[in-house]
């Protein structure tokens, strides 16, 4: 098991990370906030990311 920055596995995933869409923008969103609202019969217990 060796790992280096020259390793193709690392290179590919690094490229994938900075992949852009048709407008040349990263395929990501930042500073996000998710709110859950629900009917009174259910309540939200938590989230696991």
């Amino acid at each position, binding site marked *: 098991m060796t790992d280096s920055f020259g390793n193709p596995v690392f290179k590919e995933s690094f490229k994938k990370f900075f992949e852009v869409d048709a407008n040349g923008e990263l395929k990501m*969103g*930042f*500073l996000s*906030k998710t709110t859950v609202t629900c009917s009174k*019969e*259910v309540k939200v217990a938590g*989230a*696991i990311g």
Partner: protein
Amino acid sequence: MKQKNNFVADTEIGVGQTNAWYIGGLDYNKSIAFYFDICNTAALANHHKVHVQFQTHYQHVNGTKRVRVTTVQRLMSNPDDLREMAYGFDQETAAVLLSRYSIFKTFSEDAMDVIRWLDRMLIKLVARFAEFKKDDPNSFKLSREFSLFPQFMFYLRRSPFLQTFNASPDES
């Protein structure tokens, strides 16, 4: 975010006691499991509709603020009607949710305790939904919706996620 209100259940699964979460980065492969608790079962009449809405605000790479709203409607079944409840059971989803929950539990609890908890969960579920005659193992029968679920749990509890013995800390 610890914003307690009427939407928040008393029980906590994962990161709870709130109905809003900050997520630093989102991409197409991001998935978050939300856990819900049913309260007020008396009010759950047959085929009652329940709505859940997710509002996600985020900043796009070009600086614009964006909002995505998803609203889902679920048909609830009568808690006494086991057949109908079983019909709505998605064993693959259940396996994913239970895996996430058990991995989350290993952060604060011993892996062995989590495995035992997982076993108890499976036993409880099977005891409720399987058909069997007492003291006769051959009469045991699980309906189609649950056919693979015990296997999923079997492989989960044996997987390196929970069986961390002989694995170095960076691997477990």
